[in-house]
């Protein structure tokens, strides 16, 4: 199998100003903090981020916001990050809200090579604004378009050099969906295992979706248990 291992500097140096970047994670679990830290260090700007949430103050996405690298955030919930709420309220950050399962499905359909889908979720609410409505079998449906990105940052528990991935517990969330939906999929993994060590039956994301695998030397504090 091909070997896709690169250094974190090499992997992130592909990101260009103005790129769209999907970030896995729901809160801490599954958030690729090391890839984000390297993006902060390299400083690409004008980015569109796609992530379930904006993390909490002082973590992950918040570093990118603080560093002024983000123009637009496509997300479902930013209530735990007051910087994101304030930037939005002051007109300094464009935020597109999606219903959580609709964001997941927009990403999943992009990853499946489809262009959109029909749903009644969010109909008659502000989130339906600007979306086309059609009638199918007597039911009013919104047309939701699929959502792809230039890059996806993925956090895995186990990866082999080919990019077969396994996630841990609730760290799965958006990761396997985003791993299918970007043109360039960059994975950070807690453990790099020999090809064949992840059993074919337990692989969550198959290697052909993955472009780059970055081994994590150590986990930063941000990956740990958050004591609130």
């Amino acid at each position: 199998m091909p070997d896709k291992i690169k250094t974190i500097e090499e992997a992130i140096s592909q990101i260009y100003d103005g790129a769209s970047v999907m970030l896995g994670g729901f809160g801490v679990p599954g958030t690729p903090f090391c890839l984000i830290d390297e993006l902060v260090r390299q400083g690409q700007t004008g980015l569109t981020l796609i992530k379930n949430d904006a993390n909490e103050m002082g973590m992950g996405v918040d570093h990118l916001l603080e560093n002024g690298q983000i123009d637009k955030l496509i997300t479902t919930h930013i209530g735990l990050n007051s910087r994101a709420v304030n930037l939005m309220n002051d007109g300094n950050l464009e935020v597109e809200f999606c219903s959580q399962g609709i964001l997941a499905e927009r990403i999943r359909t992009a990853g499946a090579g489809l262009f959109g889908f029909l749903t009644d979720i969010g109909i008659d609410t502000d989130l339906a604004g600007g979306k086309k409505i059609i009638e199918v079998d007597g039911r009013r449906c919104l047309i939701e378009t699929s959502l792809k990105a230039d890059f996806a940052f993925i956090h895995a528990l186990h990866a082999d050099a080919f990019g077969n991935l396994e996630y841990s517990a609730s760290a799965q969330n958006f990761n396997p969906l985003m791993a299918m939906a970007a043109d360039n999929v960059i994975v950070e993994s807690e453990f790099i295992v020999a090809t064949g060590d992840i059993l074919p039956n337990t692989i969550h994301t198959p290697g052909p979706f993955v472009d780059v695998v970055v081994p994590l030397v150590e986990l930063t504090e941000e990956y740990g248990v958050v004591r609130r």
Partner: protein
Amino acid sequence: MELSDVKDRMIRRAAKEVEAGMTVNLGIGLPTQVARYVSPTTPVCLHSENGISGVGPSLPYGKADRNLIDAGGAYVSVLPGTAFFDSAVSFAMVRRGRIDLTILGAFQISTAGDLANWAIPGMFTPGAGGAMELAQKACRVVVLTTHLDKRGNSKIVKECSLPLTAPHCVSRIYTDMAVIDVVEEGLVLVEIAEGLSVNDVVASTDSPLLIPQINIPVF
């Protein structure tokens, strides 16, 4: 978390919604607390929208798995039968109608059972998370919230002034003052909190309330 007696009582009352055999999603905040009053011997499956069915009891920090949280960010555990899945599967479960009951928080609930709980424009718009899909597709939607907001205004109103999460979705409202059913004709006062009169509840509610009988049960 220490809760006042009043809050404790409303949470305990709402917990009676949870029946054996159900798959249940508890919203962030007060609704999450309901789990504490569901007997461990009641066979119930808790769903968490970040990708868990069969959520186990929460754990102290010392015993937490850093990769295992519920949607509210609490560290939780696994049970025999727990499953993990991605966010698309998690919401397929919701939209497919496999969630028997959801208990959600609220900014406002209207006479018609409309729910607003995701945006206070210009001030605090956290986003809807998974609330729209739960409100539209769970088989039964109930709200657990304080009766009044932080400024002392009724959260139960004739028409929601805040952006809607979903119209006509709420079946019942549990507050620190009352239990209220949403029916075709409007809102019906079902129970009142100990120590309050019907007039107290009516005076604190900006929607008309139907009073079905003279003696309203107390919880």
